[in-house]
């Protein structure tokens, strides 16, 4: 095989390799299934419980994507506001850092008091956790406009709005799309945390229920389901990034 075909094959080879190693270790040391189930046990659980895994995965995907979309809208809006005005920046930044430092799992009980258990706290936790990196990245993109570029446009009589529309916003788009990749994976963290603490459905809830019944392979099957969802969503974000801000990734065009 040529070098480039090896690179294309590498992710699959490594993944298969990891699972083979895992299986070997479990068999070799005869680890009991409640400590570490072998991939074949997990696969058996996936097949056996396919229907609940599918239903709960759809629920988790739904809450995650909804929370993520709210984070995109809110993060973009706040990021633009912060990048626009130094006064808004100075006022909001410390607040946001404080807010981001609060572990989101600690917020879930409050959300439950307000909205009851179920979908809404999961969506909101996903939103809260995914929102910060988007704000920071959009604001950074706006804050790092070259001063020469700004001078050139201001000397032409450009208003602040012109500079934002012509330079600031297009310029912050690579930062924005890069932050989406971080935000979507964080959104999963948020929704699953909330499902584990307070929900009647979702992968987090399913795993908690399986754990209380000592159905360890199903717990692991839940983890695998989350990993697959995470990879798919990440890949979609990476694809969007390439499609919409290809100019920032010159190696692939030039």
């Amino acid at each position: 095989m040529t070098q480039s075909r090896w690179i294309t094959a590498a992710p699959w080879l490594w993944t298969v390799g990891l699972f083979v190693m895992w299986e070997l270790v479990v068999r070799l040391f005869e680890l009991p299934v409640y400590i570490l189930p072998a991939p074949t046990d997990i696969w058996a659980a996936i097949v056996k419980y396919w229907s609940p895994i599918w239903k709960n995965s759809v629920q988790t995907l739904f809450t995650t994507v909804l929370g993520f979309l709210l984070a995109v809208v809110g993060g973009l809006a706040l990021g633009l506001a912060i990048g626009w005005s130094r006064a808004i920046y100075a006022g909001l930044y410390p607040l946001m850092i404080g807010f981001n430092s609060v572990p989101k799992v600690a917020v879930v009980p409050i959300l439950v008091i307000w909205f009851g258990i179920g979908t809404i706290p999961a969506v909101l936790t996903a939103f809260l956790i995914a929102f910060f990196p988007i704000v920071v990245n959009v604001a950074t993109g706006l804050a790092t406009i070259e001063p020469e570029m700004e001078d050139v446009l201001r000397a032409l009589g450009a208003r602040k709005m012109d500079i934002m529309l012509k330079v600031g916003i297009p310029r912050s788009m690579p930062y924005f799309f890069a932050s989406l990749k971080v935000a979507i994976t964080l959104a999963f963290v948020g929704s699953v945390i909330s499902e584990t603490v307070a929900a009647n459905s979702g992968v987090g809830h399913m795993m908690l229920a399986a754990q209380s019944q000592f159905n360890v392979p199903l717990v692991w099957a839940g983890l695998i389901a989350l990993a697959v969802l995470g990879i798919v969503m990440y890949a979609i974000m990476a694809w969007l990034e390439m499609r919409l801000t290809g100019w920032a990734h010159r190696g692939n065009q030039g």
Partner: protein
Amino acid sequence: MTGFVDLRNVRLSYGSSEDATLALDDLSISVRQGEFAAVVGPSGCGKSTLMKLATGLIVPQEGTIEVAGHEVSGPVSVAGMAFQNPSMLPWRSTLSNVMLPLEIVQPHRARLRSQKAAYTRKAEELLELVGLGGFGDKFPWQLSGGMQQRANLCRALIHDPALLMLDEPFGALDAFTREELWQVMRDLHAEKRFTVILVTHDLREAVYLADKIFVMSARPGTIIREKAVTFDRPRPIDLIYEHDFNEIVHELRDLIADARTVS
């Protein structure tokens, strides 16, 4: 004296009143319409500040600035600017970068949509003039440094500014490319007859291109000499190897060396 650009007794300091840095003090220059002026001086003498003053990006604490017969109190839209950093927008094609000022400056801004074809042709002609014909579709990062700087000049000139402000536009280029661009600049000026103020630390560049050279002192900057350059135009590039040319370069060099030791 009434020129196209007049700075009279300008004083400017940065920072608050206690620890303010005096950047320019009692600085006066006058540039006639269509004249090519160069400003040279030791580094840190406030050359770039001068650019910002003349385009109205900053306002002096004392003195007056007039451009095209009007006192400057805010950004003047008759100016085009080019800096050492070409600062092309990487998501726009070269042509679209060159046409950016048309999206800002009136009356082009209002007409751009309806007369798109005519404006595009104009931008392509300008690219042709600087030797970038056919490169309009390329993205800036597909161009070499010298080509980007040519495009930068086009962007500064697309709205037919009466005044062109250049801040070390050729400073980051290799010697051969720089000489090529001097000739491009010479030809552009000969064809369009705009007024130019070129800030540079390259004395040969100043002598080759300019009709008049202002020598600045070290900070706080002020004009210590005004030198007319009277070589016939169009000037061949071989001029830079001639005795009279080097005489002037030497003279300027000595002035600046003195200005540096005084500081």
